[in-house]
């Protein structure tokens, strides 16, 4: 139901997530991202939610999990392209202040 495409350039990685994010698909997305993160020394991960058509609270866990992992690795997480339904979930979760949304500088987004 969900899909994730990984693009890497030097220490910057972008993960394009699409489809439906639930507990089932979040596990697959997490594994794909973490495998790529650990294989290479990444200090900026951008997660793009432009193609997401459904997300329950498992998506919040997915974001928080990557946030913590990046912090532990000394890197940063940036979120972009979140559709209204995802924004609503992030607001409800109260993580819009913790998590960094698409920065002003072009080099940190995909």
């Amino acid at each position, binding site marked *: 139901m969900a899909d994730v495409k990984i693009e890497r350039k030097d220490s910057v990685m972008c993960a394009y997530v699409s489809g439906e994010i*639930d*507990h*089932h698909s979040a596990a697959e997305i*997490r594994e794909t991202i973490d495998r790529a993160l650990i294989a290479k020394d990444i200090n900026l991960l951008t997660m793009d939610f432009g193609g997401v058509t459904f997300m*329950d*609270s*498992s998506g919040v866990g997915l974001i*928080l999990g990557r946030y913590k992992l990046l912090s532990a690795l000394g890197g940063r997480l940036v979120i972009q392209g979140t559709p209204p339904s995802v924004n609503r*979930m992030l607001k409800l*979760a109260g993580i819009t202040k913790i998590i960094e949304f698409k920065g002003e500088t072009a080099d940190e987004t995909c």
Partner: protein
Amino acid sequence: MKPVNYVKFTFLSRSINESFARGAIAAFAAQLDPTVEQLADIKTAVSEAVTNCIVHAYPADVGQIQITAAVYENERLVITITDKGVGIADVEAARQPMFTTGGAERAGLGFAVMESFMDNVKVRSKLGKGTRVTLIKQLHMREHTSRPLFCAA
């Protein structure tokens, strides 16, 4: 009050069935002509409740999940999600936002989402016996709007 229409279904607590469950409920709720947002709310709440059965009720094995959905005359949709899993020791504590026994990848927001997206959420649970979550949403029939069509016959 007797429901106008209802469905009952039983399936295995496999994570692949999360999308089935919300899809089936969406197909049932469509008869109430919900808005896109109402349908998304219902699907999200059902996804949370079903995920809880899969993750928490049957942590080690595969069990049965039963869902009922009923439509009442006043366009009230009542959904129950029932498992025969481990149960919840303290339902009040479990319903608190951020409370989770599920580890780092669970946000502890399942019940908060259900409460925010539905009009009423009831939880009955017994340790070792299982849990029943009841989700209630009041829908209002919208007026059908006709798109204009031109026929050059």
